[in-house]
């Protein structure tokens, strides 16, 4: 881990936070003129990641079934505890 990457990563975190707060990309990179050329492409990638996210949902049947399984498992544990 180099000092340069550590400092640049710190600037990147600050810029990502600023973007989340609604600042423009230009405004963010203007705060770090020494890293401007390095930061801009990374922030563009981050914006694309934020704008689009993969979908993924468990089936409703799975959600209900697992809850029942957890309840059964808790009951067994409770009975085991009482037996002891």
């Amino acid at each position, binding site marked *: 881990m180099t000092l340069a990457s550590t400092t640049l990563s710190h600037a990147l975190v600050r810029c990502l936070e600023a973007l989340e707060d609604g600042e423009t990309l230009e405004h963010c990179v203007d705060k770090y003129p020494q890293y401007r050329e390095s930061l801009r492409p990374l922030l563009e990638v981050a914006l*694309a990641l934020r704008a689009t996210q993969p979908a993924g949902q468990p089936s409703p049947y799975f959600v209900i079934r*697992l809850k029942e399984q957890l309840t059964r498992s808790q009951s067994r544990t409770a009975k085991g505890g009482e037996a002891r």
Partner: protein
Amino acid sequence: MRRSIAQETDEGGLIALAARGDREAFGRLYERYVFRVFRHIYFLTNNSELAEDLTAQTFLNALEAIPRYEMRGVPFLAWLLRIAYNLTMNHKKVQKNNGHAPLPDAVEAKGTLYSPEESCEAKLNGERVWEGVRKLRGDQRQVIVMRFIDGLSYPDIAQVLGKSIGAVRVIQYRALASLRHLLEDDLGQYYVKSRAS
């Protein structure tokens, strides 16, 4: 006086009740987090069936371990994701699978950062970026998923991965740099064209 589950809505209270074996309290925690745990694992595995299996195992392990859960500033979700992370990594070790499977088919655009005219292009770019995430090495992919999908803070990600906050920031920086290179190398034609327009 001991509070009942009907009165308990805050997470700390639910965890305390669940740790004492209260079924309903654990059920509430389950309902609160099952979708986020599934989504996290699904993104890492790209396999619905496997994600369901690992989600089930995560909650069964959590049920067993919750009496030992200590509230020391680590959110319950981060604790759950740590269990999920360990299970997923163990599974990958067993399967010797490097996780180069294709992305999930469906991609949903959030559409908050772009105007309607830009949203189509943004979605296409986003699809390609997420394809790139799948090609990242393990720790880089984890950090991107935890930050951009799970919305965890840097301290929470550091807790889950057992690394320092500084290390997590550097991993994130390297992940975004790797993604940029992947986009320019593998998908350069489209990406360069879309940036120029």
